[in-house]
């Protein structure tokens, strides 16, 4: 199957995220946003939190968006997207506008999702609004200059988790498992996706969009600037993160776990970490610690999954 794949026949050539955006060279997040926007189509309203996506796409007086788009502050993507959805439903109910099947989508980075925007997102998921939430996870606050977030992995260097004598590992805490927090809300659809697997990513976006009720997709977004790697490595790193088990791809449909790619054997995490300057200080013990943790987590995930 892989050999005969001809990509332009599989995807639309529409670019709803226009070129000319000011993302850094080789940005994995810009690539992820572009792919997600391809899958979303035209009939959506996108709400975006403060973060990289907002600043690269909407520098006054220009905009990269070819679909209705609204920027909101860091903490309330969930609140704004649920407000728009409710208002739309109310106006249809009162006969003021014809139903046009508009979909509602929230975009935020890992800071806007797992730190600052968590309560608004949790509220929106709990109330059961019909929307799709996409988190673009580049594992720190990259837009303001690489500060740690709760999604920063253990052992990463950031400007607020510096490497020193007392903290030789940099970031001391493990990455918050945001997809599992979404699953705990018992919403119909949760998935993780990666821009290195574009067709899988676009399938998941369409699935989440069509699902009645809240849907959450966590997209891995490599950041060459903040991760201190070469600019041509974004896709390669996204692929290695999947192959090493650091960022496994799975879907949770109505509480049932399905692995998108089942890996019988994981590559050593060193393969993924060695390309990144943010991990270059790690000692063999720390690498071992990360390896053990990743294997444990992967085993736990596999035990939960329905193997088909």
């Amino acid at each position, binding site marked *: 199957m892989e050999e005969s794949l*001809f990509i332009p026949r599989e995807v639309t*050539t529409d670019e709803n995220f226009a*070129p*000319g955006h000011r993302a850094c060279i080789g940005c994995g997040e810009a690539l992820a946003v572009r792919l997600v926007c391809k899958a979303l189509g035209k009939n959506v309203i996108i709400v975006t939190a403060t973060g990289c996506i907002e600043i690269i796409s909407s520098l006054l*007086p220009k905009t990269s968006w070819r679909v209705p788009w609204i920027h909101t502050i860091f903490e309330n993507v969930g609140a704004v997207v649920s407000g728009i959805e409710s208002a739309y439903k109310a106006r249809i109910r009162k006969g003021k506008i014809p139903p046009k099947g508009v979909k509602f989508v929230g975009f935020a980075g890992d800071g806007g999702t797992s730190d600052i925007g968590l309560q608004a997102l949790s509220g929106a998921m709990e109330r059961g609004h019909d929307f799709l939430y996409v988190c673009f996870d580049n594992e720190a606050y990259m837009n303001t200059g690489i500060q740690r977030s709760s999604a920063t992995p253990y052992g990463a260097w950031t400007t607020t988790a510096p490497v020193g004598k007392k903290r030789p590992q940099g970031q001391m805490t493990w990455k918050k498992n945001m997809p599992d927090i979404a699953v705990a809300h018992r919403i119909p659809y949760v998935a993780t996706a990666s821009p290195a697997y574009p067709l899988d990513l676009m399938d998941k976006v369409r699935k989440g969009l069509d699902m009645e009720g809240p849907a959450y997709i966590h997209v891995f977004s490599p950041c060459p600037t903040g991760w201190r790697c070469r*600019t041509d490595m*974004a*896709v390669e790193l996204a692929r290695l993160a999947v192959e090493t088990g650091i960022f496994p791809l799975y879907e949770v449909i109505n509480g049932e776990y399905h692995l998108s790619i089942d890996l019988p054997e994981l590559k050593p995490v060193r393969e993924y970490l060695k390309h990144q300057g943010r991990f270059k200080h790690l000692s063999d013990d720390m690498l071992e610690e990360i390896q053990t943790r990743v294997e444990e987590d992967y085993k736990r995930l596999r035990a939960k999954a329905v193997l088909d």
Partner: protein
Amino acid sequence: MSEDDMMPGWKDLKPGFVVTEPGSASSYKTGDWRSERPVRDNVRCIKCGICYIYCPEGCISETEDGYFDADLYYCKGCGICAHECPRGVITMEEEK
């Protein structure tokens, strides 16, 4: 594009800074950020479109004869297309 086109004065902006044209960022030239440009040797190209789907700028498009080419007006020269190409068609050459 001159500096004046990129930065309109306050009199050119709409009241409330309303942006009226969707996708207007596409008039902004990001190609001059580039330090390396992708150069193709189409003899080896199998027209799979991997470069097209992995371009963060979305600046690669299909040409009339089915090959692919990057729009250098937008290409920032990241090299992802060269790195991901399964046939090694693309090489990055330094801008002079």
